[in-house]
């Protein structure tokens, strides 16, 4: 996903886990409904951390929820932390090394402050050191994701390094909770500065602080006592018998640490102002300190040289990075399979291609290769499985509250991180030649074509790690080139859309372009409007089985995107259902509301033109009438049954179309459906409806009215892949004018000219489809086809069997017929072919007609005899002839075209 997370490099994927605090059972919010579980709050909140991209902050790769409020976090990880590194490498604890370390940590903190939060967890264990000796803050997102610790019951930081004022605030908050009273996710940046001071002081003084403390209380007491000292650094040195270490230290370093350990929070400097401290002057910034918001079209910041600060940073990064730390700890499993040369200062012979991929990509592929974090945590004993009998409560009161049972787990933060083993993934991909990682998009081939997998069903392709790797590689390239490569994206997406890039592929298919973020930013999403109440009651009911959309963050984002849409489309209004329509876009672009908004707007323009007008009656009625025609056209058997029992689309299909099925299916099914829907025209949804009905045909045919409507009140399980496939077939076998709608958006691109369009150009206005009044549409059961389409069908004539795709039945009198008709038309005069009750009588041409069963049957007549045309079409529809249509505006339309001839 995006913004592209940093490449894996020599990082590991580390997994850690903790518990969110559980609400007391049966507790309800003020609306009488259960409170949102804290794990869901955290899940929604943590998403934004994925946007953090800075060389001194470990990336957040993913987060999962497990049972019993468990949270599992996957982060960039290194095996070496500062505590170990400072002992092992003298250069790390040298004054110069410490100054460099301080500079890197401060940069991380400033970035974090700019992002809008603080770490609150700074400690030697949470500062990792990568193989190049670079500091990387770890676990810095806990404060943010737990909303200042309010959704967990353990204290976030390590007491030794926690600022005294934070300890006081924690003590002030309600017992049990780890929260900081009155704190917001913004926090106070100076808290981390204290922690940094403590971390540096410890290394300077060469000791471990407060190691003699017996219990937590004493420890807290020690830290608080520092706050009473006029010079905490001196105090620490004295109490740890390390005054000698302070002597001979460079003045700047001592001053820097003392400054960090300023007792009064209001006098203590924030990270940003530390950057201008003398100690840090020799160093250049490693990267921009301002978080970059996700772009679409994708601008890869690493390719962007215009930003000079960034440019400089890229360089300094290389200068600064220094030599690789010798004897860096190796992870047994990973490195063995990697064949790193022992002396890693020499260029490696075989580049590890996987390490060039982004961490999020690697993690995605790892999962596809069978990786599962929860399993991994269990294997490595971070999740301990207790026999369930041990966790049973011993007492349960009538109100549902339980006592006893082992729920002690939530009291502490488990500090251990496990490394996700990548060897399975590596060996799955080992045989792929390096050049495949750099596909050339100009060649117009995707690299997957030669894979056998590309012929297999979608479910298999989506789970095949190798296939997906190739898809990711080519889509990454194409998306970086968007909008330039829009056509290729469409072409590739016709094969399938890799779930990893779905958000961006969809945006590309919807032609989203321009100042997406800017546009969204300009919209007033706050001012109350009369629609607010409806939005507010709809959101908590919209796809709430999904943990992201049901999180408070999800609700807030939902509200903003919907309000933004409503205010910026003054001629349109909020209809219930717009919320569902927004859901897939919000889910996919959870970290990019602006893109979610743009996609939603583009989608509505294309597929739901005018549907959200205050008065949409004409539009919906027309749509439903066309849908009814489509059912008759493609499945007369089903149509006749539904028609007989009065099961009309008005009663069940409004939510289908108004929400493009998003109110009807769960998100995973919607993705599958929309992957195809977005490739097609505005009429494709009608075809989807037909395919849906046909999948349920057996049941519908047996059912009466009540059972039919009950079936759709609670949509049964649908094989969506089949629906998608069949709807494309339906689409391909439907002449375009059949789905013509007066209210559809004028087709914007004349280069996609249809025959109808060409005809219109040629001034043959009569040959193209145009509006038909609603009463007429509703009265007719079969769709109309336009003259141009009919001519084209006739031109397509004589496929392999020598048979035309279409049979033209002229229902005028034999005299009129003889004066001129379409080539190969048969004459079945309505007057003599239909009985008084409108049924079809046996006649000489019946045999021909029957032989065309399954082909398109176009009923034509004169403009004045329109009723006869309609009646005749209905009569053969009753006989369950599929694909019956009528010629719009009668035979007269062909007069000028020269298509009429005297029948032989």
């Amino acid at each position, binding site marked *: 996903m995006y913004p592209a997370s940093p490449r894996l490099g020599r990082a590991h994927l580390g997994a850690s886990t903790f518990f969110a605090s559980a609400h007391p059972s049966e507790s309800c919010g003020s609306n009488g409904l259960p409170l949102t579980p804290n794990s869901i709050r955290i899940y929604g909140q943590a998403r934004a951390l994925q946007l953090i991209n800075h060389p001194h902050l470990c990336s957040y790769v993913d987060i999962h929820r497990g049972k019993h409020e468990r949270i599992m976090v996957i982060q960039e990880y290194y095996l070496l932390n500062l505590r170990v590194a400072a002992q092992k490498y003298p250069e790390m604890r040298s004054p110069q090394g410490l100054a460099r370390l301080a500079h890197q940590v401060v940069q991380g903190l400033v970035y974090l402050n700019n992002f809008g939060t603080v770490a609150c967890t700074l400690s030697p264990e949470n500062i990792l050191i990568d193989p190049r000796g670079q500091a990387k803050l770890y676990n810095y997102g806990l404060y943010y994701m737990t909303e200042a610790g309010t959704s967990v019951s353990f204290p976030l930081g390590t007491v030794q390094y926690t600022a005294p004022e934070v300890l006081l605030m924690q003590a002030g908050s309600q017992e049990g909770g780890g929260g900081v009273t009155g704190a917001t996710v913004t926090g106070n940046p100076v808290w981390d500065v204290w922690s940094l001071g403590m971390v540096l002081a410890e290394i300077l003084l060469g000791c471990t602080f407060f190691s003699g403390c017996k219990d937590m209380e004493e420890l807290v007491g020690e830290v608080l006592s520092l706050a009473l000292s006029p010079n905490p650094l001196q105090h620490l040195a004295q109490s740890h018998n390390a005054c000698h270490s302070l002597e001979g230290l460079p003045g700047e370093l001592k001053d820097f640490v003392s400054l960090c350990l300023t007792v009064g929070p209001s006098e203590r400097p924030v990270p940003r102002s530390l950057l201008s401290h003398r100690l840090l002057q020799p160093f250049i910034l490693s990267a921009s300190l301002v978080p970059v918001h996700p772009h679409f079209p994708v601008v890869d910041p690493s390719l962007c040289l215009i930003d000079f600060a960034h440019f400089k940073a890229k360089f300094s990064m290389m200068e600064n990075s220094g030599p690789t730390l010798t004897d860096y700890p190796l992870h047994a499993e990973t490195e063995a399979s990697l064949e790193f040369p022992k002396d890693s200062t020499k260029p490696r012979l075989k580049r590890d291609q996987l390490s060039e991929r982004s961490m999020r990509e690697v993690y995605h592929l790892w999962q596809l290769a069978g990786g599962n974090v929860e399993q991994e945590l269990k294997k490595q004993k971070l999740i301990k499985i207790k026999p369930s009998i041990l966790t049973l409560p011993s007492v349960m009161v009538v109100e549902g509250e339980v006592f006893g049972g082992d729920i002690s787990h939530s009291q502490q933060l488990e500090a251990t991180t496990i490394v996700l083993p990548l060897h399975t993934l590596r060996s799955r991909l080992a045989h792929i030649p390096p050049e495949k990682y750099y596909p050339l998009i100009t060649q117009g081939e995707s690299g997957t074509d030669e894979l056998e997998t590309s012929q297999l069903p979608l479910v298999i392709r989506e789970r095949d790690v190798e296939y997906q790797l190739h898809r990711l590689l080519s889509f990454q390239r194409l998306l970086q080139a968007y909008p330039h490569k829009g056509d290729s994206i469409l072409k590739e997406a016709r094969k399938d859309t890799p779930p990893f890039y779905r958000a961006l592929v969809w945006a590309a298919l919807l032609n989203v372009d321009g100042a997406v973020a800017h546009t969204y930013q300009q919209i007033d999403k706050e001012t109350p409007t009369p629609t607010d109440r409806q939005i507010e009651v709809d959101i908590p009911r919209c796809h709430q089985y999904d943990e992201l959309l*049901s999180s408070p963050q999800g609700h807030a984002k939902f509200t903003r995107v919907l309000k933004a849409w409503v205010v910026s489309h003054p001629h349109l209004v909020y209809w219930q259902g717009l919320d569902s329509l927004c859901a897939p876009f919000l889910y996919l672009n959870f970290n990019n509301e602006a893109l979610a908004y743009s996609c939603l707007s583009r989608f509505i323009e294309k597929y739901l033109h005018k549907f959200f007008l205050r008065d949409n009656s004409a539009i919906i009625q027309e749509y439903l009438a066309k849908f009814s025609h489509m059912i008759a056209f493609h499945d007369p058997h089903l149509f006749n049954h539904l028609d007989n*029992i009065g099961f009309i689309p008005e*009663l069940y299909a409004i939510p289908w179309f108004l929400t493009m099925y998003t109110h009807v299916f769960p998100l995973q099914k919607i993705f599958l459906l929309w992957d195809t829907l977005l490739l097609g025209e505005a009429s494709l949804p009608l075809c989807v409806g037909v395919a849906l009905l046909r999948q349920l045909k057996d049941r519908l045919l047996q059912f009466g009215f*009540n059972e039919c409507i009950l079936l759709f009140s609670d949509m049964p399980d649908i094989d969506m892949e089949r629906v998608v496939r069949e709807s494309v077939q339906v689409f391909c076998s439907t002449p375009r004018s059949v789905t013509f709608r007066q209210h559809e958006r004028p087709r914007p691109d004349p280069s996609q000219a249809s025959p109808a369009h060409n005809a219109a150009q040629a001034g043959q206005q009569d040959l193209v489809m145009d509006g038909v009044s609603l009463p007429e549409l509703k009265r007719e059961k079969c769709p109309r086809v336009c003259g141009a389409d009919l001519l084209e069908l006739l031109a397509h004539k004589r496929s392999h069997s020598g048979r035309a795709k279409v049979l033209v039945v002229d229902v005028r009198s034999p005299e009129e017929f003889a004066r001129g008709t379409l080539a190969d038309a048969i004459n079945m005069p309505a007057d003599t072919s239909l009985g008084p009750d409108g049924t079809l009588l046996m006649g000489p041409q019946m045999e021909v007609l029957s032989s065309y069963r399954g082909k398109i049957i176009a009923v034509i007549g004169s403009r004045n005899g329109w009723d006869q045309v309609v009646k005749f079409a209905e009569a053969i529809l009753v006989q369950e002839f599929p694909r019956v249509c009528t010629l719009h505006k009668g035979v007269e339309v062909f007069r000028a075209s020269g298509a009429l001839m005297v029948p032989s």
Partner: protein
Amino acid sequence: MAQRTSVQRPSGGGQGKICQFKLVLLGESAVGKSSLVLRFVKGQFHEYQESTIGAAFLTQTVCLDDTTVKFEIWDTAGQERYHSLAPMYYRGAQAAIVVYDITNQDTFGRAKTWVKELQRQASPNIVIALAGNKADLANKRMVEYEEAQTYAEENSLLFMETSAKTAMNVNDIFLAIAKKLPKSDNSATGSQREGMTLRPSDPTPGPAGCCK
């Protein structure tokens, strides 16, 4: 289609009389119409009950002495914009439940509007019940019981405060309606022709026009 009608009948029927009634639920969005129906039909409560678009349909059978009453329930969309669909559902209905939320005064106002519309436009002997839902949230009450009761009496409506969440009075209100409905054979036959009552009877789109 006709050959399947027998399936509609609850099993074991035969001794007693079977009546079918069409019932419609009306009221502002999010007052709990769908939740009431779900509680009545399936005995469940979903806190994340999806909003209703257009309308939903469910059936439930209750037994009253020797009569089996089958409700065909149309649960409509509450948003004001969907108003124009409503006649399609209440036309020909023998009963209606107009729902409001006791914690929201506006929804009570809206309920009164619905009652007026039913009195004017629905079939003249329609049985109307007023349900003050979310009674479990008594501490957030904005509509007094007495106020609603007085209004119900003045308009000869059945009235109960209900809670789809706790199931309070949910079956009761449907039963009270069932009791009040005439159970002579001819009255119930209106809806015996399944579904047919719903079709806009004439081809010209009358007020049943969709989403106006």
